[in-house]
């Protein structure tokens, strides 16, 4: 340990002095790049971050523990880098043996020396002059061999040379002029690049598709909404399936043992359920796909006939050998936008329901059927056409797309939750016009109702017992950012409108450290290591839905200032010795 500390100290000193240590990259090009293989994706080195949530199981957990509960109070910024753009910076900085790749809004990827912050190269995908962006963001680049993969908001999937930043191939997926776009980090499995489309507010038909990493050729596409003669097709009426939504805009997780990808699906469209009667499979579900051919091998629908815009796109966390009433199960754990903490079981034939209980105030379900988990919906709190309906949680849910993390050390799930945030919505019949927003709801009637003095909560849950271990309440703010758990028994999260970046004791929930950054943080923090020093990195850059909530809260009795400053900066921290 003494040796490690000394190494770390020397490295940090070097970093602070502008780096005289080993530089993994030359200006403009990365030398000695480490190709990303299937073996590395399945067993990543502790110091790297090669997948959206670091590991295929979606734990968002780093085993690094040089930064821990005893020294996190000495965390200081080591370097920063201005991205040059505003809006919501939502991507985790990806790190591969000393090289960092940062995706930003406006389809930009920046390669940086992860130790010094020096710019290596910058790629920018040209934006069509007439592009409209409902969600101007990117959630990161996928990695395979010496390539990076960017899913762009003009609905192109692009391969970039990780060493030089040069574009290698560029595949048009669908047509942005029809409201079809991409924001997620691609998931790479065995040389296939998997993506899911956005556009649930434009009447698209959702899908997950795979592309050849070498050529960009589409290999398969599985729609999340079936045709009438396909399984699940009888859960739709008429032509509603053609515009039924179910977009799949967040990266899935993968179980290598079963060779199954678990992918979340979005809201049914348009929002009010009476405009698309039926259960509407496979919207608001988790679907199990064979990544080799896209065949759906199972599913679980969290709630039927979605009427609340509760996308369940955040893929469930895979926890192997989790205790369930004395038995060991391979679980799927999903803190859902519908406000329930769902526990499911992976089986050879698909997905089985285990349990579900609300983790925030929830009045839309009277309960759930004990055998199947099917919600018993309260019609008084289900939005419909021509009537003001109140419901909790709001359309942003108990937790939106920002993901929860899981620590195998504490065996707790850390949920960036929004409690006490209810809403009023009025459904309205609207004709679908291609390329125009199609909500089926009157925005003027939408109101947020913060019920008490706080909304944002960082919650820790034991998924095996269904018990909450601790909660931290943030006054007068939403909490809108993914969490990071580390082997140092820490949980990192931004997400608040005061621009703070926080570190909590993972066991107790005590706030151990915080620092105000340039903007608000919506992105996922990561932990990585270079030359024996552990770093914590996160993008600070507020926008998109965090700002939308801010704007709506500004119009409530809370009277919040809607002005949360924008502009992206990559922050990298280490412990000062």
């Amino acid at each position: 340990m003494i040796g490690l500390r000394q190494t770390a100290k020397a490295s940090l000193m070097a970093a602070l002095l502008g780096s005289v240590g080993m530089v993994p990259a030359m200006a403009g090009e990365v030398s000695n790049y480490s190709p990303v293989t299937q073996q590395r994706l399945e067993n990543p080195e502790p110091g790297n971050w090669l997948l959206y949530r670091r590991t295929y199981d979606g734990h968002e957990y780093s085993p690094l523990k040089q930064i821990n509960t005893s020294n996190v109070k000495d965390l200081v910024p080591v370097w920063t880098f201005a991205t040059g753009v505003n809006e919501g910076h939502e991507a985790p900085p990806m790190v591969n043996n000393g090289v960092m790749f940062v995706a930003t809004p406006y389809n930009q990827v920046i390669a940086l020396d992860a130790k010094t912050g020096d710019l290596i190269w910058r790629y920018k995908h040209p934006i069509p002059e007439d592009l409209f962006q409902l969600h101007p963001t990117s959630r990161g680049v996928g990695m395979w061999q010496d390539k990076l993969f960017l899913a762009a908001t003009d609905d192109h999937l692009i391969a970039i040379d990780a060493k030089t930043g040069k574009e290698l191939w560029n595949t048009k997926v669908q047509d942005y002029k029809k409201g079809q776009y991409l924001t997620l980090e691609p998931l790479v499995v065995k040389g296939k690049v998997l993506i899911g489309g956005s556009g649930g507010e434009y009447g698209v038909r959702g899908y997950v598709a795979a592309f050849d990493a070498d050529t960009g050729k589409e290999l398969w596409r599985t729609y999340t909404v079936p045709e009438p003669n396909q399984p699940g097709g009888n859960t739709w009426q008429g032509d509603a399936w053609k515009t039924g939504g179910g977009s799949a805009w967040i990266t899935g997780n993968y179980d290598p043992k079963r060779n199954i990808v678990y992918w979340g699906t979005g809201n049914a469209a348009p929002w009010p359920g009476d405009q698309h009667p039926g259960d509407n499979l496979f919207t608001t579900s988790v679907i199990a796909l064979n990544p080799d051919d896209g065949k759906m091998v199972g599913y679980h629908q969290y709630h039927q006939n979605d009427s609340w815009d509760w996308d369940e796109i955040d893929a469930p966390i895979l926890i192997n050998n989790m205790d369930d009433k004395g038995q060991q199960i391979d679980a799927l754990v999903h803190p859902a936008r519908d406000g329930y903490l769902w526990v499911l079981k992976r089986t050879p034939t698909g997905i089985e329901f285990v349990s579900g209980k609300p983790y925030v105030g929830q009045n839309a379900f009277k309960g759930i059927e004990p055998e199947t988990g099917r919600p018993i919906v309260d019609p008084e709190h289900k939005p419909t056409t021509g009537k003001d309906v109140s419901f909790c949680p709001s359309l942003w849910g108990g937790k939106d797309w920002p993901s929860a993390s899981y620590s195998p050390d504490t065996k707790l799930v850390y949920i960036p939750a929004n409690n006490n945030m209810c809403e009023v919505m009025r459904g309205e019949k609207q004709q679908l016009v291609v390329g125009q927003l199609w909500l089926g709801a009157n925005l003027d009637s939408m109101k947020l109702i913060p019920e008490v003095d706080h909304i944002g909560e960082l919650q820790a849950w034991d998924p095996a017992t269904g018990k909450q271990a601790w909660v931290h309440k943030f006054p007068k703010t939403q909490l809108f950012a993914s969490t990071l758990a580390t082997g140092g028994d820490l949980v990192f999260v931004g997400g608040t409108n005061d621009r703070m970046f926080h570190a909590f004791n993972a066991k107790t929930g005590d706030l151990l450290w915080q620092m105000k950054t340039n903007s608000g943080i919506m992105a996922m923090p990561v932990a990585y290591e270079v030359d024996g020093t552990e770093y914590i990195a996160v993008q600070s850059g507020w926008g998109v839905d965090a700002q939308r909530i801010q704007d709506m809260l500004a119009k409530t009795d809370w009277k919040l200032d809607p002005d949360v400053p924008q502009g992206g900066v990559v922050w990298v921290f280490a412990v000062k010795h």
Partner: protein
Amino acid sequence: MTKGKRTDNMACCSDPVRRSLLQLGAAATTAALLPGRARADDEDPRRMERPQVGDFLVFAGGDQEGALIIEGALNVGEEPVLAWATDPSRKVLRDGSRLNQVLVVRLDPSTMDDETKSHAAAGFLAYSAICTHMQCPVTGWIPEKRILHCPCHQSEYDPSQDAKVVDGPAPRPLAALPLKMVDGKLQVAEQFIGKIGMNKQTM
């Protein structure tokens, strides 16, 4: 839709227009129709051009798609409509780029500031339909305040004050398209004043 409530979809917004046109009589309406959405070749570069001086305006969608917007087409304070420009011979519809689309609204001239009044014809005003924030189409209307509303990120513009931003994240007003009325038909008097859409992010 209920009067006094915001609407964010042009389908609802076209209803009063349809009523207005029906009041004109079937013959007049039929005469104003543009048969064939675009007579020009799809590759005709003139389709990409912004509205030109002397162009007429036609409905971009709804039941009256392709019909000329004439003096009786909108009542004061009614919801705006989306429109394209068409060349004076009506052979070229300038719908080759979303950035060419305009919204047309009719207000009482006495409620307009002087700059706005100078762009108006018989109370009709035309602005770029492209929000200066993220380039979504500005399709919403708050009738009680007579404010244009973008449903994507809630930017609001006042059409009586040269479409200046009154709420939300938009950084600039909508570009104005000055109009004149010729033989009861709306015609473009000058090219767009102001930048269309968002600023390019610079690095």
